């Protein structure tokens, strides 16, 4: 019996911490490939580069854990960012502009939440619709033109505290927030429960609608923040920015071990996932890998990461249950 327990414990440890091991191995390998890799400038650079998508990835993590998803974050980022920049140019107030950015992120995601919960539209479809609508609104509002000369607003993207770029500080804050929500609040517990087994969560007295809409609201604040940082980093209010970022964010969350079946995932894992992707991009650039080939490699890594995860899970189930779980338990024949 005791050997069984240690094996189970080892399995838990392996599945929980393997992502950090991958990250460490990667750092060592990258450092061997290029001696500039570990310089504080390079690391600060990478961190700043991944900050926007990582903030989005934290939002996706919360959602995926609850069995949800946001495909609209790239577009909503653009809408929130453009509105924030516009308001800044009108008012000249950084706090007001900041607030407006968050507000637009939250508002769009409130609608996402309503569509998913009150209208029972699958998250994939609801946020796909929002993706198109939000992009359309930001283009309509700006007539497709970039907003230039954004003045002090660039501080959000290019400012530094010591040698740490502002976006990185925001990324860390959002990361800590996500970690705290998931591990230390009843809301976080409920997210895991809703994603792990919605019916059981409901039968335990959890208000599913509140949890799902709440997850979208928090995601909305993250997306709004990401929009502000994005515009400030690129020094322009660009209605076309953020295209494809939803997939970058999803990639980081998935590599970080967030399970699309719901109920599993951590903030640390997502951060590690984001850095793995960031390091990978960086080292491929530093060593001069063809940029088209880079995409192929990135895609292959996603398939590998998730494939390994599923394979390990299958093995684990086989070992503990003697393959008892493989056939579907017959569903209740409701008439």
């Amino acid at each position, binding site marked *: 019996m005791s050997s069984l327990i240690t094996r189970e414990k080892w399995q838990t440890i392996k599945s929980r911490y393997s992502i950090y091991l991958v990250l460490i191995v990667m750092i060592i390998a990258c450092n061997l490939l290029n001696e500039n890799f570990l310089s504080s400038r390079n690391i600060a650079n990478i961190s700043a580069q991944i900050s926007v998508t990582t903030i989005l990835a934290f939002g996706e993590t919360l959602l995926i854990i609850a069995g949800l998803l946001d495909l609209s974050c790239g577009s909503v980022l653009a809408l929130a960012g453009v509105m924030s920049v516009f308001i800044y140019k009108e008012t000249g107030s950084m706090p007001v502009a900041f607030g407006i950015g968050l507000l637009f992120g939250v508002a769009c995601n409130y609608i996402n939440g309503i569509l998913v919960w009150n209208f029972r539209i699958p998250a994939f479809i609801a946020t796909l619709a929002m993706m198109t609508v939000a992009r359309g609104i930001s283009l309509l509002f700006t007539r497709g033109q970039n907003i230039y000369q954004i003045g002090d607003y660039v501080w959000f993207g290019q400012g530094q505290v010591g040698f740490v770029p502002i976006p990185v500080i925001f990324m860390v804050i959002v990361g800590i927030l996500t970690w705290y929500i998931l591990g230390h609040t009843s809301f976080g*517990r*409920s997210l895991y*429960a809703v994603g792990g087994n919605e019916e*059981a969560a409901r039968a335990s007295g959890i208000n599913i609608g509140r949890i799902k809409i709440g997850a979208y609201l928090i995601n909305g604040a993250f997306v709004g923040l990401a929009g502000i940082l994005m515009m400030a980093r690129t020094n322009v209010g660009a209605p076309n920015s953020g295209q494809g970022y939803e997939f970058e964010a999803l990639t980081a969350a998935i590599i970080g071990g967030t399970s699309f*079946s719901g*109920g599993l995932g951590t903030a640390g894992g997502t951060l590690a996932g984001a850095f793995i992707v960031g390091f990978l991009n960086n080292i491929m650039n530093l060593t001069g890998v063809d940029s088209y080939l880079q995409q192929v490699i990135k895609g292959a890594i996603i398939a590998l990461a998730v494939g390994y995860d599923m394979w390990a899970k299958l093995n684990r189930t086989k070992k503990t*249950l003697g393959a008892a779980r493989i056939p579907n*338990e*017959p569903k209740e*024949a409701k008439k």
Partner: protein
Amino acid sequence: MTQNLLLEVKHISKAFPGVKALDDVSFSVKAGSVHVLCGENGAGKSTLMKIINGIYQPDSGETFVRGEKVHIGSPIKAGELGISMIFQELNYTPEMSIEESLFVGRWPKKRFGLIDWRSIRERTLQLLEQENLPYDPETKLKDLSISNLQMLEILKAVSRDSDVIIMDEPTSSITNKEIEILFQKIDNLRARGKAIVYISHKMDEIFRIADEISILRDGRVVETRAKDEFDIDSVIALMVGRTLGHGYPKEDVARGETVLEVEHFSGPSGFDDVSFHVKKGEIVGFAGLVGAGRTELVRALFGLDEHFHGTVKVHGNPIKIRSVQDSIKSGIVMLSEDRRRFGIVPVRDVKENVTLASMEQFFKNGHLYTAKERSKVEEICGRINVKMPSIDVQVSTLSGGNQQKVVLSKWMLQDPDILILDEPTRGIDVGAKVEIYKLMTTLVKEGKSIIMVSSELPELIGMCDRMYVMAAGRITGELERAEFSQETIMRYAMNMARRAS
């Protein structure tokens, strides 16, 4: 005839974590005969059949088909060997037509791998005529009744030329008339030399259909004999062992005032004008056949389903139940019959599952008090005797009985006044069952009240103080403990007890 064994298994054993499901089981079926396998829930019937059908692999033992030793690695292999299984709860693709489903997975092909629909149609019509079934090959499965679907499964088995047909409680959800049709079909198959394994625990059916009877209890075959050498009493006695009515850890508890009063409760899911009450310290049973509306009733009472009208009073105060939160607030909790769907969050650990319903105890202003949570969970799991390596393991790695205890722990943490236990011992081993019975006794001694829904009459008779019997969504009888008998309960359950008129 004795040599003509179509299917034989020898010394099969199979263990799941925490449960020995089958222990040295041997079993055989002759050509042209019906072998009934009976036993209580959890006796190992389904596990044995799943092994024969290649869904599970035995830990040890041998299987012979037509005298040859075989290894059945998958249901496909079982099909090739001429073994067909008809499951209790049929899995089917609603949008498929009869002819598509009959040949699913082995559609005849034309050149370039195209499906030969014409030949399918011909063969379907031929089969339907041969078996005398008046179906249209294009009818979609979703438009068929359960009994028609069963017939279709039998047809599938026949079309495959299967020699061994296993039926797992085929009558659990069909009408009496349909049962007659099914039995005619079985007689017909028997006459054609097929071997049929028929799983059931309904006495009248068993004695009508069987040639041989094997009784399974706690994973062992306790007796195999020809039908004539059994009578109903001996079968029941062997099925339940020594525990019939006695042997339950039941203690007399003084009953207090009425804590729950339900009046004229009706709902869309299938219960109508139900009135009952529960007293403090009382275990109240709900008996009835599958589909009588018991589960639907308690689900609505717990706020999981809607109800139209009716009043619910807890401690004399009327309450409105619109959601689970409302009932929990009033001190009512429910252990659901389907642990996997409504009980556990399998991918999360024991600790999170246990505190799921009472997070407000450990979270102040949303912040978690880890140490308090750990100690409380460990205390409650220790009390309920959940066997696990630690409270940090995933619930999915525990055995069924321990998963059930985790769900119970979750509700104990709420310190409820009224517990609804819907099939609390379904699919768990005998040891865990007894522990749950003991816990029930402890709880009523502490002044709590229990509503127990169960399809196992012996445990209702063993544990309850009072019992309501339901049929077709209504309460048809109320019995005090002194009046309990299987016969009376079954009469009410089949609604045959209506006096005069």
